[in-house]
């Protein structure tokens, strides 16, 4: 409870700071997304041909396998992966408790514009899943995909100052997500 109160206060403060800065500068909209220290440096990784996809990354980005439970959190978090804004994932939807606003806000309202991720581990290997999260444009070079590259350093256009050269997700968070995706089997 105490933790939630603190969170609420932080949210309100952030919101008023947002409005103030917008009024002051006119050109400043939203909190600076990358100055909070959440956005990390990009790890080195080796891209190899996959089983089905033309690109895959065999080795974990930070040398160790991730934690699937944490992966769910990053996938739902609007400032992290926010994967469910576009993909529907039944196993995450199951976490919404009926009539519970907080769990609905956190795990609910999945998008429908990208393929559902149920059974995704039947379709791709771990190395391919890692490649898709790291840089979907390399994984699907012919698709003109909208999916952002979550762990790529360069090749972007007009990146906001404090985001330059940084990844959206850290290496360990990518691994957490990959660890969860690996469990999404239907067969």
């Amino acid at each position, binding site marked *: 409870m105490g933790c939630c109160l603190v969170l609420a206060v932080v949210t309100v403060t952030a919101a008023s700071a947002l409005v103030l800065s917008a009024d002051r500068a*006119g*050109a*400043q*909209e*939203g909190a600076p997304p990358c100055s909070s220290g959440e956005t990390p440096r990009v790890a080195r990784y080796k891209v190899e041909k996959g089983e089905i996809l033309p690109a895959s990354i065999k080795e974990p980005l930070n040398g160790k396998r991730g934690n699937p439970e944490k992966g769910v959190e990053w996938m739902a978090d609007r400032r992290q992966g926010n994967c469910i804004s*576009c993909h529907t994932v039944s196993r995450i939807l199951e976490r919404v408790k009926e009539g519970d606003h907080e769990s609905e806000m956190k795990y609910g309202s999945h998008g429908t*514009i990208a393929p559902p991720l149920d059974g995704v581990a039947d379709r791709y290997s771990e190395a391919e899943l890692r490649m898709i999260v790291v840089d979907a444009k390399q994984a699907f070079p012919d698709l003109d995909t909208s999916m952002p590259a979550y762990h790529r350093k360069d090749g972007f256009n007009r990146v*906001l100052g404090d985001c330059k050269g940084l990844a*959206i997700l850290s290496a360990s968070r990518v691994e957490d997500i990959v660890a969860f995706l690996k469990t999404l089997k239907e067969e």
Partner: protein
Amino acid sequence: MSRKQPSQTNAAPGRARWLVAASALIAVALALPAVAEPDGRTEPIKPPSEDHPYPELWSGWHYAAPETQAMQDEEFENPAMAWNDIGKDLWSKPDGEAKKSCQDCHGDAAKSMKGVGATYPVYFEPEKKLINVENRINLCRTKFMKAKPWAYESQELLAMTIYVKHQSFGLPVNVKIDGPAKEFFERGKAFYFERRGQLDFACANCHTKYWGQKIRMDTMSQGQSNGFPTYRSEWQSVGSLHRRFTACNVMVRATPYPLGSDEYVNLELYLAWRGQGLPVETPSVRF
């Protein structure tokens, strides 16, 4: 058979029932406004040409929550109408060294400005580029009123822009994209399809491919501009279309362009054309 040819004895009560039904219908018809033309709110509008990027045009109103829709449509509920009132006052207020007001040259805005806002941005020969309503207002201020231009996003410029555009309320967006405007239209189009920011999205990645679909809590709109400047509850204020562009750019973690910049004015023309035919809704209310 028998219903169509009622016997003489049944005719009188039959006609009475018909009369009752008819007068009820007339009463309902009088109570309701005439059947509305499609306005992109509950019925989509047909695009201006067959090669238009949208098969049907929908105002952002269509995707707003019912409370937001009601807030826009009730004149006394719409918070942006306060800015319209400020604009109305400023219209007749002399300013600058020339001690002139807008009214001194343009007279009654309801007549002189009717339909004008629906045609902007326009190509402006003296500067060999596009200008939007905000630019036009400041041109009048500096050139004819000998007054200082209003800062972009200042209360005065927002208020006057709303007041001018509100004179086109309900009239279809009708921008010119050929002739000298074409080059700038093409630049605006290129901007729309250019990916930018850490998330690597172009405007098109959301508003062309996925309009009408859910992105978490929100339904993606077509990104139409016919209601701007708009009151956004997220801003707790009215804001210009360029402020909205800035918010979109920052959302995809891209460096925004300055408010009033040529890049945004060119995009403004391209967007207006994507909504060509939608009625002007300024000032609208959005989330």
